[in-house]
Structures are given as structure tokens and as C-alpha cells.
């Protein structure tokens, strides 16, 4: 089976920006079209035939995601707009008070930095940043104490593709009575994440990075924790009943899914999960490793400096690099212009890390299951032309 055939865009260009947005297979596109053409309706509230079909499809999507990350129950899967919303949901629903400590790393996406900075201002919580340089576990242990309420970390960094030792982190945090949230936007699409084996408390993921439609995301939370959380967005579909003075909330996950949901997106996400399962994480990782190896060699051969470890096996499908004295945006623009190679340039929403390191950004090429050797060749060949042009 040739994966690329399912991705029309991947046949036209060399798409290496999957850490930002993955391409969508035809199966997902068709599933979304099917919703709009055959059974556009509301889930959970309309009891006609179409409504029941949507309810069933949404439930299937929830079940698919539950299986993907090995959650105990489908109720532990809350559909959101993206990882950012999932993280914000936890940040605003946990009963945090002044003096409580939240720990993040120095390489967090803005979506796992700003919610805590805002809470520092609004509630007076203390936000501590742990360095990922050197021994991360030792750095983390040093900061842990009984006031730490939550450790919120990117599982795999969107900046350099490195993955934290999540199991160890979670054990340490739990020993100190702290909860752990993983921003798994860059890990769930690429590798097996078993929430039960990890014993993680919360996990945030984005649908658009894992072959799903834009505007879809997931928050996983342990059942008992989700039940304790106070939803921060309420309204239609979050309540069983209301009077002018009172309300009765729905159980999880509905109490967090306020208003009419993105049914087409959720159903499309379910199909994306199905597609990922069909290919299998082993194959996905093998493809990414092969592509990353080729890209890494090309970057090094052309005098580029890699951000993060040089060993491609430690960087998932991501190679983030700079070429001395060259504007990173120019490299990305020229890769596009000279070879239709699509990469991202800039600070990748990790401004804090770049600012702390005095860098103005990097070029990031990120692979996924639809990339192949042909793409690597084109990338290497075009990068060589670019380097010759700008050197």
C-alpha cells in the first residue's frame, strides 16, 4: 500500500510542516463530506434518524480515541478545539489558589506557558520553569515540593522533537502529590502513548496534527479528576436541567463540551484515528526515522546547525536548524520558491526559548507518514541550491 496515494497534497509538493499541521487522507475528507451530505444533524439531543446517526458516529470517534491512548473509559475523552483549549480547560478548571506551584519546562509551546502566566497574574499562583538542559529529571526533582500542584510538560517538543522521560516525570510528581498534564500534540500523532501505563492525569492532543480536521482536539483526564473539575465554559449541552435559580450539570465528558459541537470535525477525527491505527505506529516511526535521517544528513552536510541532539533518533520526525548568518525565513521562502518544499521558519510558538538563547528562530522540517525518500532527495537538493544562493 502506498500511503502517499491517500494524500493528494503530498503528491503535489514536498510537505515537511506536519508539526504544525498534518495533511488529511482522502478517507478523512470523505468522512467529513459524508456527514455534510448524508446526515447533518445534532448529536445527543435530536431523536430522529439523522440525529441518532450523528450521536453514534461521535460516540464511535470518542471510543476510537479512547482505544488509541488506552484510556479506561470513553468518558475520559473530552472533545475540544485543540491542545491549547484542552490545556486552558485544565488551567481554568483546577481549583488553584495563591501560592500553588505549577511547573513547566523551558521549552514549552506558548499554549502551555501563557495559561500559567495568566494565572500567576490573576490568582497569584507561582509558575516555575525547569531547564531541559543537562539532567532534566534532576532539575525537576530539585524544584519539587508539597506546594507543587501540577507539572505540565510538552511530551514531545515541537521545537526540536525531543521527548521527555514521561514515566519518570510522572512518578516523581506523584511522589510529591502533584498532578501531571502532558501536552501530547507532538507525541500522540507519532508514537504510542498509553495513558494507563504512564499513569498520567491529563493529556492534551490536537486533531489537526494527527490527520484530523482543524478545530478538533482532545483532553484526556482520569475519570475521578474530570469529575472534580469545574467546567470553565458552560451553556447548552452541559446541563441536564435548569430553573431560573439553579442548574443540574451533565456528567463527564458532556459537562465540558458546551454548545453545539464540531460534529463533522469530531467524526473526521475518528476516521483519522482509524487511519493511524491501520498504518500502525511502528510503521509511522520507521518512516519518520528514515526521512529524518536523510534530512539531518543533508543539513549537516550543508553546514547547518541542528537545534537539539544531532542524533535523529532522538528527534521524532523533526529537524530544526539554522544556517549561520542567514535569515531563517529566507531559507524557508527559498525552499518553497526553488523546490516547492514546505517547511516552517521562525520561533514555532516557543518564543521564550529562542529569546532566552538569543536566537531569532530556526527552520523546522517535520516529517510524517506520507513523506518518503523522494521527498528527502528533493529537500536535500533544494536546500543545497538555497545554501549556494545565500552563502
Amino acid at each position, binding site marked *: 500500500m502506498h500511503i502517499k496515494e491517500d494524500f493528494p497534497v503530498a503528491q503535489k509538493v514536498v510537505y515537511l510542516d506536519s508539526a504544525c499541521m498534518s495533511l488529511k487522507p482522502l478517507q478523512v475528507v470523505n468522512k467529513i463530506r459524508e456527514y455534510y451530505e448524508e446526515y447533518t444533524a445534532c448529536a445527543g439531543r435530536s431523536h430522529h434518524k439523522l440525529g441518532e446517526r450523528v450521536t453514534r458516529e461521535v460516540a464511535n470517534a470518542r471510543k476510537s480515541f479512547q482505544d488509541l491512548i488506552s484510556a479506561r473509559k470513553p468518558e475520559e475523552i473530552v472533545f475540544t478545539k485543540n491542545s491549547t483549549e484542552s490545556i486552558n480547560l485544565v488551567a481554568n478548571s483546577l481549583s488553584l489558589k495563591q501560592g500553588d506551584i505549577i511547573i513547566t519546562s523551558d521549552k514549552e509551546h506558548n499554549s502551555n506557558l501563557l495559561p500559567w502566566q495568566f494565572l500567576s497574574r490573576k490568582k497569584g499562583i507561582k509558575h516555575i520553569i525547569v531547564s531541559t538542559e543537562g539532567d532534566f529529571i534532576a532539575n525537576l526533582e530539585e524544584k519539587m515540593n508539597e506546594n507543587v500542584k501540577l507539572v505540565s510538560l510538552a511530551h514531545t517538543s515541537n521545537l526540536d522533537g525531543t521527548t521527555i522521560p514521561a514515566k519518570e516525570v510522572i512518578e516523581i510528581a506523584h511522589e510529591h502529590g502533584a498532578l501531571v498534564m502532558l501536552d501530547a500534540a507532538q507525541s500522540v500523532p507519532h508514537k504510542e502513548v498509553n495513558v494507563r501505563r504512564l499513569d498520567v492525569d491529563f493529556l492534551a492532543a490536537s486533531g489537526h496534527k494527527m490527520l484530523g480536521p482543524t478545530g478538533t482536539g482532545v483532553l484526556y483526564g482520569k475519570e475521578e479528576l474530570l469529575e472534580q473539575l469545574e467546567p470553565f465554559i458552560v451553556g447548552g449541552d452541559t446541563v441536564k436541567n435548569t430553573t431560573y435559580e439553579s442548574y443540574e450539570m451533565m456528567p463527564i465528558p458532556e459537562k465540558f463540551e458546551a454548545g453545539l459541537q464540531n460534529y463533522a470535525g469530531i467524526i473526521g477525527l475518528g476516521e483519522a484515528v482509524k487511519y493511524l491505527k491501520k498504518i500502525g505506529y511502528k510503521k509511522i516511526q520507521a518512516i519518520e526515522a528514515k526521512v529524518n535521517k536523510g534530512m539531518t544528513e543533508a543539513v549537516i552536510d550543508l553546514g547547518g546547525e541542528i537545534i537539539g541532539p544531532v542524533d535523529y533518533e532522538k528527534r521524532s520526525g523533526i529537524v530544526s536548524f539554522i544556517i549561520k548568518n542567514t*535569515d531563517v525565513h529566507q531559507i524557508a521562502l527559498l525552499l518553497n520558491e526553488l523546490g516547492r518544499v514546505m517547511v516552517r521558519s521562525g520561533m514555532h510558538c516557543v518564543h521564550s526559548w529562542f529569546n532566552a538563547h538569543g536566537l531569532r528562530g530556526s527552520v523546522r522540517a517535520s516529517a510524517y507518514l506520507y513523506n518518503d525518500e523522494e521527498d528527502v532527495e528533493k529537500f536535500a537538493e533544494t536546500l543545497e541550491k538555497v545554501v549556494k544562493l545565500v552563502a
Partner: protein
Amino acid sequence: MICFVALIVFGIMGVFSAYYRRLAKEAFECVFRTVTLRPCDTGFDKKMKAKITGKLSKKSPKLGRVVYKHFAVFSWIMVVITLVSMVLSAQAVYNIIVYNNCNGPNSNEACVITGQGFNQVEEVKTCDCGFDTSNCTQEQAVECNYDCNCLEEICGAH
């Protein structure tokens, strides 16, 4: 500097196409920031630089590299050329309005806007046919192989 040129060029092309109107708007934002002494951070100048040098290097890598390296100089040259051609165009338009000729009073030179001077047979005029050939067209001259007798027959003396 390339934003200034882009604003003018895309502004004119934008009259005919919405695509160029969008580019002109981007260029305007960049120009506005530059004239208000702020750095152009819209990325438009970088986009233009990559587009121009990328296209050039496809034709000639050497030329692409030179333009990339000296893009600021290249941009200035483009600005000067654009400004000079704008001044000359404005002058021509003024001449047309006032003298009905691009080149000012008492000029017989060709005018691209009015078309004056293009159809006359200068080669014939310069030789002595013994009659006024200003009514003869280039096509007629070619047809006659620049022969005065033939021309006299076709377009006649006045």
C-alpha cells in the same frame, strides 16, 4: 526599499486584478511602517526578495546570487528607475494634455500614447521623392519596396 517599488507596480496591476490588490495592500503596510520609521515586520520584503532571487536563480544561479547578496542596492536601483519612469510618464501625460503630443511642442517624434509618428514612412521621407510622403504608411512603403513612383501612385502627393 523593494516595498516602494512593489506598491507602485502592484498598485497599477491591482486596477485589473484582485490578486495584485492584495499584494499592493501588503506592500502598503510595509511602506507605511517604513515611512513611520518602524521596521517592516510584515515579512513582505522577505517574500519579495525570495520570489525575485528564487526566480532569477532558476534562470541563472550566478545572477540570483549577486542579486541576493546586493539586494538592498538592487532595490534602490529599482526605486530610482521606477521614480524616473514615473516622472517621464507624468511629463508625457502633461504634454499630451497641453500639446496633444508626448514630446512637447513642435515635435514630430513618435508618441506611444497617441500613436503619432509610428505609421509614417521615415525612410521614404528622408529620401527625395519630390512629394510629401507623410500620408504613406509603413505597410505601403514595404509594398512598394520604397519606390517613389509606386508610393506616389498608392498614397499620392498632397
